[in-house]
């Protein structure tokens, strides 16, 4: 469920970068306090382990699609939420760089989706709550399972929001949600099982690791009130966004793919949208990029044709096509020339 660069807008990407950087900075501060020689390699190894786990794709029965583990919960349990979040961030940086999985701009989104909900929501509220009476095999199983599923669901929902807010995909909200959530329920179950198995094993082999991760953390001492307050804020924001979408699609959840057409998508001139657009206008250094609303406003008077931008006109289309082909040819030739020149130089040097 890695978001890709190609699917997000700079504003969404930037906002999520900022959010992630903020959480990361806070985590760095927390982690620095209890960094010892044992913990440093542990962080690295767990990061590598989750990285490897994310490489294994399994097919989800009945859907024809495949998924991979998220691993955020495992990191949170074995390293504590702060180090866990950082580990997740480093995994995704490496994937973005080496595998172009996700992307550098989408990095903020991905770290947030995979790391934040697991480490800072599912872990403290579900896992720790279930473990409050101490560890046992049964509790480890339930706690791990539940929190892994919930964490992943939140993450998947977040993917939906980010994609839609970016406005690159025409996928209607309802359809997208119906695609994402059930698939990630299936993945979540697998994830929960695997996480439970690994945590169970580590608990038997090196119990001190798990206990230390949980105890050394300030999170355990944070009052439940504060967490609830934080959660309430998150809920309000999510709810706001959700209801805004929901109003755009009164029967959103029943929407089927084929009777929906793109033009209805973001037409609701919602308050949030306009504010965002205004904000964006201020911060964007690339002025003609915008949310669809903005486009439609500017284009509304230009032509009655739907989505009439840049301009529907055979002439420009042809010239665009010709120019595009020329550009690509030129690019190919440039590369080839450089290559040949280098080769000749090398041969000459020998």
């Amino acid at each position, binding site marked *: 469920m890695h978001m890709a660069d190609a699917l997000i807008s700079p504003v969404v990407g930037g906002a999520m970068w900022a959010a992630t950087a903020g959480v990361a900075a806070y985590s760095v501060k927390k982690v620095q306090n209890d960094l010892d020689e044992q913990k440093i390699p542990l962080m*690295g190894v767990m*990061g590598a382990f989750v990285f490897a786990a994310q490489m294994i794709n399994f097919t989800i029965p009945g859907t024809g699609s495949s998924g991979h583990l998220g691993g955020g919960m495992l990191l949170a349990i074995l390293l504590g939420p702060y180090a866990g979040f*950082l580990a997740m961030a480093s995994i995704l940086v*490496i994937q973005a760089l080496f595998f*172009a999985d996700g992307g550098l701009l989408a990095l903020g989104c991905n770290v947030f989706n995979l790391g934040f909900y697991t480490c800072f929501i599912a872990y403290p509220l579900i896992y720790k709550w279930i473990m409050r009476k101490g560890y046992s095999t049964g509790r480890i199983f339930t706690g791990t399972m539940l929190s892994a599923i919930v964490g992943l669901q939140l993450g998947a929902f977040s993917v939906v929001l980010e994609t839609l807010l970016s406005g690159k995909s025409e996928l209607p909200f309802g359809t997208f949600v119906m695609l994402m959530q059930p698939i990630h329920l299936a993945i979540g179950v697998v994830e929960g099982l695997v996480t439970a198995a690994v945590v169970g094993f580590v608990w038997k082999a090196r119990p001190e690791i798990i206990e230390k991760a949980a105890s050394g953390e300030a999170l355990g001492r944070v009052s439940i009130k504060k967490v609830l307050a934080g959660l309430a804020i998150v809920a309000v924001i999510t709810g706001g966004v959700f209801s805004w979408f929901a109003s755009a699609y009164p029967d959103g959840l029943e929407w089927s793919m084929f009777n929906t057409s793109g033009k209805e998508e973001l037409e609701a001139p919602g308050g949030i949208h306009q504010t965002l657009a205004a904000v964006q206008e201020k911060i964007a250094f690339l002025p003609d990029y915008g949310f669809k609303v903005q486009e439609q406003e500017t284009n509304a008077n230009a032509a009655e044709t739907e*989505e009439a931008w840049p301009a529907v006109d055979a002439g420009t289309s042809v010239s665009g096509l010709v*120019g595009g082909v020329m550009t690509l040819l030129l*690019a190919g030739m*440039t590369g080839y020339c450089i290559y040949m020149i280098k080769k000749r130089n090398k041969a000459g040097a020998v």
Partner: protein
Amino acid sequence: MSNMIASLYNIRLLDELAEKRTIIHNIHPLIKVLTTCVYLIVVVSFNKYELSGLLPLVFYPVIIIALADIPIVPLLKRMLVVAPFIIGIGLFNPLFDHSPMVVLPWIQISGGWISFFSILLKGVLTILAALVLIATTGMTRIAAALGMMRVPRVFILQLLLTYRYISVLIEEVGRTVRAYSLRSRGEKGIRFSDWGSLTGQLLIRTLERAQRVYHSMCCRGFAGDYNVGSEKRIQIGDILYFTGWGLYFVVIRYFNIPAAIGSLITGV
């Protein structure tokens, strides 16, 4: 399993590419990171219906790949692996968006298809940009660049160690699988009943090994900073590289050059 081994191979391939010495490799890592960022933002900032204006951005990866001697096949392979998600989401656009967009004399293309291809092209460009960055810079130097950007040391350390231990872990996986297959009567894969103990074993083993590696780093004076040799200063050439590309990107962003060329040729 084979997936993991393949990814190890991939990491090491990029690592080895990063050890080459070409003009591009010699550019200051910080500059390369910044240039990549600007490039990505420019690529992504294009409107979803702007396809032709995006095309000149192809020059960036092409020129760098050629100058830096990067083999193309592995990059393409990597792209194929990542593409499905992008295509999967993008493919909905033609389904939902039927408004005519490009009207050629012989065919009409809907906005959905245009935005689909635009997503696809953006996908290709952003993926290439990231791969090209790592293949010409290498992990340690990127970490150094992050350090110059004041990213906290703990995070850089975490990043580098994760990176390092990925190799350790996958090596352990490889060894374990090999040892297993040698004594397991030629069955394919690993029996279900052995999975649990093998995975757990692997984790513990890797952990112990990782601890030893970490200790040996400490024994050689490691104190949280990876040093990658001469801390180069940013030079005139680096600045030129950055401003050159930066200007190019901005121009491309504001003027649709292919359309201009096209209209020149077709005389429209």
